[in-house]
C-alpha cells in the first residue's frame, strides 16, 4: 500500500509530471506564469481543487454511476462536479478565510476549464485507483503542477531580459522555454520505487 502510494506520488510529481509529460493543464500553465507570485497562487489553487475533485469524483463514480450502469455519463457528471466544487470552494473561502480568498480568488473560476483537473479524475477511473490512491494522485498531481508552474515562471522572469528574434516574442519563446524544461524532466523517466 505504502509503496503504491509512494510510486504514485513520485510518478505524478516528477516522472509523469502533468505538464511536462502529459500536457494536462497547459492553458493556465502558459497563461498564469508571467510572475512567480501568481504562479504560486494558481498552483496552490489547482492542487487544492485537484485533491478535492479526485476524492469526490471517486465517490460519485463508485457509488452512483457504476451501480446504476451510467458509466457513459462520467464526463458530464465529473465536469459538473468540478464546476460546482469550484463555485463552492470560492464561496466558502470568501466567507470563512478571506485572506486566502483574496490570494487565490481570481484563479478559482479559471480552474473549471483546467484540463488537469478533469484529466486527473478521468485518469483515476482509467487506472482503477481506489479512494486513497485517487486522492493521493490528485494532490500529488497538483503538486507536480505547482512545481512545474513555479519553475517555469522563475525562468520566464529572466527570459524577459534575454534577446531573441522578434518573431518569437510572447508565446513562442515561452513554449521554447517550456520545451527545455520538459527536456530536463525527461531525465526523471525511469526512476522507480521498488
Amino acid at each position, binding site marked *: 500500500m505504502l509503496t503504491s502510494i509512494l510510486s504514485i506520488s513520485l510518478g505524478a510529481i516528477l516522472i509523469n509530471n502533468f505538464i511536462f509529460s502529459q500536457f494536462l493543464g497547459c492553458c493556465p500553465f502558459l497563461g498564469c506564469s508571467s510572475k512567480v507570485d501568481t504562479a504560486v497562487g494558481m498552483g496552490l489553487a489547482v492542487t487544492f481543487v485537484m485533491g478535492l475533485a479526485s476524492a469526490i469524483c471517486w465517490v460519485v463514480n463508485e457509488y452512483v454511476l457504476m451501480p446504476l450502469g451510467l458509466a*457513459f*455519463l462520467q464526463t*458530464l457528471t465529473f465536469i459538473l462536479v468540478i464546476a460546482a466544487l469550484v463555485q463552492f470552494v470560492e464561496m466558502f473561502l470568501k466567507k470563512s478565510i478571506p485572506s486566502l480568498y483574496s490570494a487565490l480568488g481570481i484563479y478559482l473560476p479559471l480552474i473549471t476549464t483546467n484540463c488537469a483537473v478533469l484529466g486527473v479524475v478521468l485518469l483515476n477511473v*482509467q487506472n482503477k485507483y481506489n479512494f486513497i490512491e485517487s486522492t493521493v494522485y490528485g494532490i500529488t498531481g497538483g503538486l507536480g503542477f505547482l512545481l512545474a508552474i513555479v519553475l517555469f515562471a522563475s525562468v520566464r522572469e529572466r527570459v524577459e531580459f534575454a534577446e531573441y528574434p522578434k518573431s518569437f516574442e510572447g508565446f513562442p519563446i515561452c513554449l521554447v522555454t517550456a520545451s527545455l524544461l520538459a527536456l530536463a524532466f525527461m531525465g526523471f523517466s525511469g526512476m522507480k520505487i521498488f
Partner: protein
Amino acid sequence: MNKIVKLTLILFLVSAIVAGVLGLTNMVTEEPIRLYNEKKTAEAYSAVMDFDSYDEVSYSGDRSEVTKVYKTNNGDWIVEAEVSGSQGMITVAVGVKADLTCNGISIISSSETSGLGSKASNAEFKDQFPGLTADQAKVTKDGGQINAITGATITSRAVCTAVGAAIEAVSTLG
C-alpha cells in the same frame, strides 16, 4: 429565491435532456464496444496460447500485477497482468506453459506514447519471449535475454515485469 429556483430548474432540464440523448447514444454504441473488447481479448488470448477452451482460476497471491488467470484444457495458463509503463497502465496477456516458460505475449491495451512504447505490440519485440523462463524474461540491462525497444526501456521493463509476475503466479498455483 425565486430566481435561483428558476435557474436551477433550467440547468436541471438541460442536463436531463443531454443525459437522455446520451442514454440513447449509449444504447446504440454499447453492443459494438462490447463486441470489440471481447474480440480483442479473445484475439490476444489465442495469440499467446493454443487452446480449445479455458476456465477462470481465482488468484490471490502476492503479485498484485496479475488481474486474471485462466487454465486451458491442455493444462497451460493464460494470465492477464496490469503493469505501469512510462505513462500509464499496460495490460498484457501472457501465455504460460505448464513447464513455467512463456509461450507468448500480447498487449491488450496501453496508454504509452504513440510510436514509442506502443512498439511493444510489434513482432520484433514480442517474438523474443516464447520459450523463456521468468529469469530469462528480463531486458538485457537487467541480465535477461530481451532486447529492449530502442528509446523505450521503461515500457520494455514493464512488459518483462508482467511476464515475470505471470510466471510466478502460475508457479504458486501449479
